[in-house]
């Protein structure tokens, strides 16, 4: 303040610049720390059930099989030589759907799905997703629940 007369506009500008830079630095750091906290609480590895797992040799699922692996929340379907894995987690509110004569039925809120997982009734907003199923090098079938595939895309064996 005492040298305002001499420094004039230049002094003010320098002060403003410092203020701007430090505010920017502080604000930026705050944003950065919020972001890193979000990154921190998003787990990179999960400790629960793995999303990718083997279910055994194809022979264990003879043609015509519709077998719900309840603990894995997936239904293995074999139609001739075509294999598919359909989710059994209801798209409504996350209950486990059971097999029914016409496809799948959710015991919680009455959603119904056809053999391919399309909604045929109840509150479910989306069809049941299909998961990637592939042949692992050891000859076992591998399901990856992190990868969804188009309904109707089968693995041919």
């Amino acid at each position, binding site marked *: 303040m005492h040298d305002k007369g001499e420094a004039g506009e230049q002094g003010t500008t320098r002060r403003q610049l410092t203020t701007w830079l430090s505010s920017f630095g502080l604000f930026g750091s705050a944003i950065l720390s919020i972001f890193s906290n979000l990154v921190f609480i*998003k787990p990179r590895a999960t400790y629960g059930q793995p999303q990718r797992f083997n279910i055994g040799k194809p022979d264990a699922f003879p043609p015509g099989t519709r077998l719900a692996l309840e603990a894995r929340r997936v239904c293995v379907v074999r139609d001739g030589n075509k294999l598919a894995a359909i989710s059994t987690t209801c798209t409504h509110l996350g209950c486990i759907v059971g097999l029914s004569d016409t496809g799948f039925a959710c015991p919680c809120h009455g959603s119904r799905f056809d053999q391919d997982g399309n909604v045929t009734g109840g509150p479910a907003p989306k069809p049941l997703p299909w998961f990637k199923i592939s042949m692992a090098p050891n000859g076992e079938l591998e399901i990856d629940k992190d990868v969804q595939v188009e309904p109707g895309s089968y693995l041919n064996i």
Partner: protein
Amino acid sequence: MSQATESPSTWKALTDLPNAVWRSIFRNPLPDSDYGRASTSFTNFFLHIHPVKVHQNSIRPLYTLGLGLMSFFLFVILVVTGILLMFYYVPSTTQAYDRMLDLRGSVAFGTFLRNMHRWSAHGMVAIVFLHMCRVFFTGSYKKPREFNWVLGVLLLLVTLLLSFTGYLLPWDQLAFWAITVGASIASYAPVIGNDIRFLLLGDATVGQEALLRFYVLHVAVLPAVLTMLIAVHFWRIRKDGGLSRPAEAEATETAAPPTITISVKAKELVQNKLYGLQGFVRGPFNKVGNVPDRSVFSWPNLVIAEVFVFVITLAVILCVSLAFNAPLEEPVNVMHPPNPAKAPWYFLGLQEMVSYSAFWGGVGIPGVFVVLLLIAPYVDRGNEGVGVWFSRKRLLANTIYTSVVLLNVIMIIIGTFFRGPNWEFISPWR
């Protein structure tokens, strides 16, 4: 005797000891003058959250119904019982349910403490909601109290989150499926829905990670947030000029000269002064000595009212906890959801709406509700009808609020009592 002659001051100090200690802690004797009553509030750490005097309207039981205080006292009960329960609880999927059984079977007062915690939690959700209704119907969110209303809405949301996170901890069927359903409702949020769900559960499904996360949120993060918000909420009550009151209750300068006692000493002190430091608040305040004083001393009037509300709250919780046991269902069975699987009751309105439309019921309509609540004081700017229940001048605002609230309440009632297996309509009277 010899001591007395040798060192009378020491002997006197010893005999005086209890009194001296007492007086060093409580600097004022029980007051018998206005000056004393003022100092009592002013010099006591726990009492100085109060102003020295409050407006008569603020302690009218039928005006506030004590709902805000009740919410706070329920929170206090929840903190105390919650900390006690933490001594025995382990947030592990293999142990949590056993610990619940231990509370029932082998911990002294275990059942009782859990009952108190559970019923206070339900009570707090309900009372916080009723407190919001009181504030709305008396028009108390209006200028200069707009931001305190916003804080109140945030407090309601944090209260709901606290209750929701606590729901999972017993790790029984009710807990597991209610959280499964609740987290799925959250995942209907557009774009970030699935990320929210994943961050909340720490995994694709409800499991050990979710239990640990909910535990940390429930016992550390959310209580800290709630405490902070409560502190600002309380502080702003005073800075916004005390509780709202009708304009008629406001003293005007042209009114009759002081009718109520202001002690001679204080009057001399403030003769030429229009405000004290405490006067730096937004909104109306009484200019000392110039206007009819419709305020009363906080000690004892306000303090007695508060103690009364506390005793009533605690008594009700104790009675309910003695009479009803908190539910504990079968241990979690991941394969077999109950039919129907229901969210906690305060989210059943959402679940009912989700059964019609996933996005609108789970995210759209509730989101609109919350936004409406948050902006209400900035949209409804009129200054009329403040401080009166159901003022005719606020007919429109009150009608809109009532219909929005009623819609949710009706949805909750339908979801709670009228929905059976497969979420089909049932009659509760059968």
